[in-house]
């Protein structure tokens, strides 16, 4: 009954949407003046400038501390500042992790106009990763910093499990880009587990998830960074080939294992003696085979699979859902309209115009799902190949893709505590 009433009212509304002045402006005889109401506008541009300056400053401090001074302490200070400022004070929006979506959308669709601040938030940490490694992750990212600050112990998962779990950030990234370029949703923002904690309110399920992650972060370093964060995955590509790199020690490694235990993100690979004896040429042949047979197969399979479910994926788009509702309503009209349909008909929408939008979105989804599927195949393939390729290492080595440049390992390396002149 109530819904019916609303429907009637909204029908009324639909007709009269432009007839605004049902009642004429009053002629006041008492000399009444309209109140002068102004609405407060915060100094957003100023704050954004502060954000960017602080971002660069903090990343420079981390780079200086871990590459030049080779100490961990300033990184802790940076983490605290970042959690307080970017996290709690600025409530974490727009963050670099989410900016991936804006960038993807801007690259795919040139009607979307990217704010310069978002571009800087995206590109500066990437640039720093390219120069100095993941110094953004070390303590400038409020989410990483928060996990770092609560971390006490570093229980490690098995190598295979870790490698498999490390695929999730990539898949998350691929889906985030897919949904961003089709203007469906920004899933990274929607499922951000820490924003609720920073804002001290919000979706209860996500806050709970964030709290769980933090509890896990006490016992094993940075679970979100390692197994979920899509931006970290992107940064790892650049950190892998960065110009300057973190070194555990400048002196020769004595294989004491202490740094390996200290690293929160399990980025230090232990020495490994390859037991399988195969000739070099045979080994190379095997790997080449992986790349020319196995990898293309994975890519193809991924692409086909994702393309076949593209219309299911497209239901994440609001217009697609609306179209489905309208089609359903046209085929079996109902008395009580949903709020969406009410608004649709109220605005004078026609199914033809909507169908055009719908077909456009479906086309986009088919194209981008195929790409996404190919990428997922590529990531899976690389992970599997990575698991089967063994390389002999004589000493402890940093895997720079995973290293977050926190500098914790420095303090643990006994070689570092030798006196300076013994270098």
């Amino acid at each position: 009954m109530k819904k019916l009433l609303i429907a009637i009212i909204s029908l009324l509304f639909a007709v009269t949407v432009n007839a605004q002045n049902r009642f004429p402006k009053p002629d006041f005889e008492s000399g009444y003046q309209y109140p002068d109401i102004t609405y407060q506008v915060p100094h957003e541009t100023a704050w954004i400038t502060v954000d960017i300056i602080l971002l660069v400053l903090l990343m420079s401090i981390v780079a200086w501390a871990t590459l030049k001074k080779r100490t961990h302490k300033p990184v802790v200070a940076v983490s605290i500042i970042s959690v307080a400022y970017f996290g709690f004070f600025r409530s974490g929006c727009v963050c670099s992790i989410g900016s991936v979506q804006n960038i993807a959308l801007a690259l795919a669709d040139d009607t979307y106009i990217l704010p310069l601040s978002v571009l800087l938030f995206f590109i500066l940490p990437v640039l720093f990763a390219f120069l100095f490694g993941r110094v953004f992750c070390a303590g400038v990212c409020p989410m990483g910093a928060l996990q770092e600050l609560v971390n006490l112990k570093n229980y490690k998962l098995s190598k295979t499990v870790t490698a498999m779990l490390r695929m999730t950030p990539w898949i998350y990234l691929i889906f985030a880009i897919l949904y961003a370029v089709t203007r469906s949703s920004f899933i990274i923002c929607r499922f951000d587990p820490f924003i609720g904690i920073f804002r001290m309110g919000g979706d209860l399920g996500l806050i709970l998830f964030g709290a769980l992650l933090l509890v896990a972060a006490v016992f094993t370093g940075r679970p979100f960074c390692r197994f979920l964060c899509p931006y970290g995955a992107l940064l790892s590509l650049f950190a892998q080939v960065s110009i300057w790199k973190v070194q555990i020690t400048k002196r020769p490694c004595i294989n004491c294992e202490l740094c390996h235990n200290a690293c929160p993100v399990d980025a230090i690979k232990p020495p490994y003696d390859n037991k399988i004896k195969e000739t070099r040429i045979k080994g190379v042949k095997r790997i080449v085979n992986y790349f020319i047979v196995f990898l293309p197969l994975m890519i193809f399979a991924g692409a086909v699979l994702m393309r076949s479910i593209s219309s299911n994926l497209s239901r994440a788009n609001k217009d697609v859902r609306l179209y489905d509702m309208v089609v359903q309503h046209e085929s079996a009209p109902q008395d009580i309209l949903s709020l969406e349909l009410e608004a649709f008909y109220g605005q004078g929408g026609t199914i033809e115009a909507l169908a055009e939008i719908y077909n456009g979105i479906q086309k986009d989804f088919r194209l981008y799902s195929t790409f996404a599927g190919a990428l997922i195949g590529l990531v899976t393939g690389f992970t599997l190949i990575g698991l089967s390729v063994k390389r002999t290492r004589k000493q402890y080595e940093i895997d720079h893709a995973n290293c977050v440049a926190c500098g914790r390992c420095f303090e643990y390396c006994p070689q570092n505590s030798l006196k300076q002149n013994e270098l």
Partner: protein
Amino acid sequence: MTNNENKKSPIARRKFLQTLGSAVAGGAILSVSGGLMYRAKRQEATLYWQIDPQKCTQCGRCETHCVLPISAVKCIHANKVCGYCDLCGGYYRSNVKELNTAAENLMCPTGAIERQFVEDPYFEYTINESLCNGCGKCVKGCTSFGNGSLYLQIKRDLCKDCNECKIATVCASGAITRVAFDMAYQLKE
């Protein structure tokens, strides 16, 4: 990794790959930032979430879906559009028997609309923003029966400028979009 490269030592090959990787990464950064920077300069970007009052159908989700505990959406009153009516469609419920300020007669569930007598028969209406929860009930009443001077808008001083406004993802009418700096506020005048 062809066969003639195998003659080099693995170290040299790794170095070569590393340099190649650096070049690709550096090139990618330069081209993406250059291209996007060029476009960012050309047009003013849209950053601020605002409601288009002409489109909004007062579905009620503004009250419930904002990420803030109390929505950043508030009712705004355009005095210059208002008819200053005694029987205000936004102030009283549609089926009131007596025009007095008893709570059961009032549209606003939180009593955020205050009215003041101006002169016969006119009343001035003001929104007490600290009480308003953005439910839009009054807006519905005013748009249906009055001049439409009450409308919902995202308050810039309260809004967190989420990268994706959570209300926009569920807004029944698609009224919430990003606007450029000089278009926020979208006010009715």
